[in-house]
């Protein structure tokens, strides 16, 4: 469904992605792991067309989207829930959600989807008239995800949804992502929480300073010595 073929990106002289190839099949949940500064966010920015490619090609549903704009990406159904949530702080919860549906024209369906988000995240229903900046961190992350879903994504890109959240809430969010996937949404998940991410991922990539150094099925990588040592903090026995 989504293919990054040998893409290279940089910020000025800083090389952020170096010849990266990543494939996401329709209906799959694919994860990208890596330490701080590995290039995970840059990868999602490139897909959302916030970052220009210097080399390589982006394909979405067989179409070349290498040169498309961020708006076109949204129209194509590529929806990103960015790192740090980036909700609109002075808009109400409901206004934030309707902004998620900015590119949609089906008013009635948007109304239905608002109801749907309220049933996914009942807390957002209670807070619907509240200014978004007054939500707790966990609530803000739920709002950011719900806002993304309001666009009816064909593929949902999530950048570290567990960042700064308590373990219980992280579990809630991950089980929600699993439900979404089972309902048919294609998901590309960037995470530092490798253990959680690998458990729900069908396939995963490990980024190190802009390069893919390892890839494989989620379960496979969970067993991998290098992953265990560097990303799960599990030392070799013996």
């Amino acid at each position, binding site marked *: 469904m989504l293919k990054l073929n040998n893409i290279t990106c940089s910020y000025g002289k800083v090389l952020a992605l170096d010849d990266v190839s990543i494939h996401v099949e329709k209906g799959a949940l694919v994860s990208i792991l890596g330490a701080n500064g590995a290039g995970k966010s840059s990868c999602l920015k490139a897909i959302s067309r916030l970052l220009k490619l210097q080399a390589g090609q982006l394909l979405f549903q067989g179409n070349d989207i290498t040169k498309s704009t*961020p708006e076109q*990406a*949204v129209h194509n159904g590529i929806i990103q829930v960015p790192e740090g949530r980036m*909700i609109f702080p*002075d808009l109400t919860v409901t206004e934030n959600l309707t902004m*998620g549906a900015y590119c949609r024209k089906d008013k009635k369906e948007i109304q239905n989807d608002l109801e749907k988000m309220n049933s996914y995240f009942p807390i957002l229903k209670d807070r619907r008239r509240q200014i978004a900046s007054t939500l707790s961190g966990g609530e803000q992350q739920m709002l950011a995800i719900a806002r993304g879903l309001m*666009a009816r994504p064909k593929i949902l890109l999530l950048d570290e949804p567990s960042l700064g959240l308590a373990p219980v809430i992280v579990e809630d969010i991950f089980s929600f992502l699993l439900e979404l996937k089972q309902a048919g949404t294609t998901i590309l998940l960037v995470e530092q929480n490798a253990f959680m991410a690998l458990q729900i991922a069908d396939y995963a990539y490990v980024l190190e300073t802009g390069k893919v150094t390892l890839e494989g099925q989620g379960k496979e990588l969970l067993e991998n010595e290098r992953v265990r040592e560097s990303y799960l903090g599990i030392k070799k026995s013996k």
Partner: protein
Amino acid sequence: MIFSLIVDGLAVGSVYALVAVGLVMLVKSTGALNFAHGDFMMISTFVAYSLLVQLELPFWVAIVGALAFAAVLGMVAERLVIRKLMTGPMSGIIMGTLGMAYILQGIAKIVWTDDIFKFPEFFPGDFVKIGSASISPQSIGVIISAIIIITCLYLFLNLTKVGTGLRALTQNKTAATLMGIKVTKVYSLSWALGGILAAFAGILLAPALYLSTGMGGITFTGIIAAIIGGFGNMFGAIIGGYLLGILSSVIPVYIPTELQGIIPFVLLMLVLFIKPTGILGKKMVKKV
């Protein structure tokens, strides 16, 4: 006596409020403090004057024409000057908008000369007596018009998708882009709106004043009103505008004429002394 002064002050304050609201909206949407705002107002009002008096077109045609001119002027300014400069330092934007102010004044002087013109009153009629006070219908008309315009702006920003999108963009540009909001379109729209607000202000102000190419100085009054209200807050800008209008109408009765010009500055300093962020301003959170 004092009552009719207050009503006149509210009328002038309405104009200040419109100018200040426009300035704040542009600062919030594109980060640009528009030093040419008063000159947008001046030249649009001259366009209205020419359509109304020189071409003798009907009243509403002249107004619609001037508003359309102002909207296009705003969009051209955004496209040619602001969009490039807003990616650079603040000093570039300041010089850019100041440059526009001088260019517009120059053009206006060539087209309409340095003379002063009498702009016809839109709301003629006899003075209205309320108790012992007599109030000009023009003042009442200006106040009501401004309230309608500001209400329309409020409804647009809060109840329409595009208006909410404009507010969203001012709060987080990256997130707005990720929603599929076309950022350049919204910038263009906000400058069109800024132009329209300036034109309304000028058209409401002109009958009470002579029309001249020097009118653009109102930019500074608008900036002061915005700061008094708490810079960046639109309601604050409105409050600041009305406060400034009323005080500059009432106080001159009690002080020598020579001191009239300092009223806005004294008020500004008083307000900032009591509350450094302005009346409705939020506490500045320094970002590290």
